[in-house]
């Protein structure tokens, strides 16, 4: 009945006969249909990341690099520190795929050992930064008020300290080794992460679902773990993709000024530093391989970070 009334009220042009209009029942089946698959935040982010070709290139490179860091040294018959003076400065060949360096060591083997060290330093430093940053930033942002004020003042002071100078200072006193380098890199490195986590927590803690959780009497630690942290994961992951390459770069830089990882370990920084002179005499491969892998790893993390930033941004979700 109602439908007919509606039809009448609409002024149909004279040349369209009324019979052309028919009333259709509501199609309940179609109403319930979902036009797109329902995706969680992470599924959607992944879908968008896959579409970003540069980011995928970076990701694939990093996965391959990690695999090679694990199995690479096993593929080669040479020991990492085995010196062989008659085989000094051999160009890349079937025997030595990446050539040999000034002490006749196999560059192929050393490159993958270097990948182990560089990735290890990068990942562990980032992991420690994230852990401290989440705890500090989470408490500071969630508690607010006086606690936040004091914690933020401490962060502001630490943030003002010149990062690499503090690292140099610590390594001069502690002596360079794998452990002390990671310690020095993380001792003020977590500050940036803490600031990001705090900013996110400050924003999210005022949302209704947190209020709802609070009104049920949920413990603070549980609210931070279950409500706040999952929602801050995006920016944390993006920040991690920036922390790892900066730790790798810092390690290479430290090797260069003589505070790098000491033998028997060989990082890319040490290899590049050792061969800076060699390149002038035409032995390009000794510098090329470590330099290429440092640069391409930094490049891969950078483009992956850019891609993740876009993929994890809820504002850009379609």
């Amino acid at each position, binding site marked *: 009945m109602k439908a007919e009334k509606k039809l009448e009220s609409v002024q149909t042009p004279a040349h369209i006969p009324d019979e052309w209009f028919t009333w259709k029942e509501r199609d309940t089946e179609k109403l319930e249909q979902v036009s797109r698959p329902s995706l969680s935040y992470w599924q959607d982010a992944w879908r968008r990341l896959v579409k970003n070709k540069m980011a995928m290139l970076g990701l694939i490179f990093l996965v391959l690099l990690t695999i090679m860091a694990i199995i690479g040294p096993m593929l080669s018959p040479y020991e990492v520190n085995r010196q062989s003076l008659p085989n000094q400065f051999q160009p890349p060949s079937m025997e030595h795929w990446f050539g040999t360096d000034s002490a006749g060591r196999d560059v192929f083997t050393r490159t993958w050992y270097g990948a182990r060290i560089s990735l290890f330093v990068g990942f562990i430093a980032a992991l420690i930064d994230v852990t401290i940053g989440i705890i500090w930033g989470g408490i500071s942002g969630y508690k607010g008020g006086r606690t936040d004020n004091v914690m933020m003042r401490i962060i502001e*002071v630490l943030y003002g*300290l010149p990062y*690499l100078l503090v690292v*140099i*200072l610590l390594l001069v006193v502690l002596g360079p080794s794998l452990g002390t380098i990671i310690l020095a890199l993380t001792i003020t490195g977590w500050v940036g992460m803490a600031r990001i986590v705090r900013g996110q927590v400050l924003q999210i803690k005022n949302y209704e679902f947190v209020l709802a959780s609070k009104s049920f009497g949920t413990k603070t630690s549980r609210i931070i773990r279950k409500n706040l942290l999952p929602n801050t994961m995006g920016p944390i992951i993006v920040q991690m993709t920036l922390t790892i390459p900066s730790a790798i770069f810092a390690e290479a830089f430290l090797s260069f*000024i003589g505070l790098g990882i000491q033998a028997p370990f060989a990082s890319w920084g040490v290899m590049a530093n050792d061969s800076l002179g060699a390149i*002038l005499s035409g032995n390009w491969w000794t510098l090329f391989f470590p330099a290429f892998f440092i640069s391409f790893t930094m490049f891969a993390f950078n483009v992956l970070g850019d891609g993740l930033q876009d993929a994890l941004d809820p504002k850009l979700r379609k």
Partner: protein
Amino acid sequence: MKRMLKYTLKRLFIMVVTLWVIITLTFLLMISIPGSPFNTDQASNETVQANLEAHYNLDQPYYIQYLLYIKSIATFDFGPSIKQPNQTVNDLLSRGFPISFELGIITIALAVVSGILVGIIAALRHNGFLDYVTMGIAVLGISIPNFILATILIQQLAVNLEIFPTATWRSPAHMVLPVLALATGPMAIIARLTRSTMLEVLTQDYIKMAKAKGLSPWKIVFKHALRNALMPVVTIMGTLFAGILTGTFVIEQIFAIPGMGRYFVESINQRDYPVIMGTTVFYSAFLIMMLFIVDIVYGILDPRIKMHQKGGKSG
């Protein structure tokens, strides 16, 4: 004005605390180094050693040493070098720092000007050929560490093509390669940042308004858009200063430039502790001051802070 003053005082307070932390840190590290600084290979008898320690107040309790240390730093006296005879840290600083400063200033000027220009061009040609090319180069610029870039530049432009001299710091031609090696990274960072903020600003209504008014594209970009797009660049200037400063350690070493960075790396390799500590304190103070200036400049430039002032006064 009151707001600005309060902001400045707050930043000033943080700056002083940060300086105190780094000074205290260097002191703690200095006393935690095992052994006396005079325990060298040269056989010296115990009386000489005791006299030397008395001369440098090393026989005093730690808190007195600490106060003396703060006093000496406050009067810009960083003490003697223990590896280079008859040299004080101040001698090294006054000799090396002007050269490093020159290198740093030229680098910053180049990085800022060219970085902003490249960023603007990329933003105006968004998704165009120039955008892809410049941003591709920028990502490479961020990825390649400066010491590797420096080596490649020397190998190609100085050794192979012999366009520029390889080392030292005498004429403008000597400056080209080190400045290029040092400026590429910061330039790439500034270009990327300028591009992304420019893109955001260019879509805003007031830019449409300016276009509708019939302003020339030149005026729109430089007078209206750039002002707002530059704020993020100002915020990262502190970090860039720090990066360029630590970059000089490496670049001066590679190009044999007799600047402070080179002395610093030498002192690290020789474990010349007074020079390491003195230079660290000096560099830190310099950077912390720079950070403070950047913060104040940001406070002056940020239109929102000004707006609050006006609102506060009239309302």
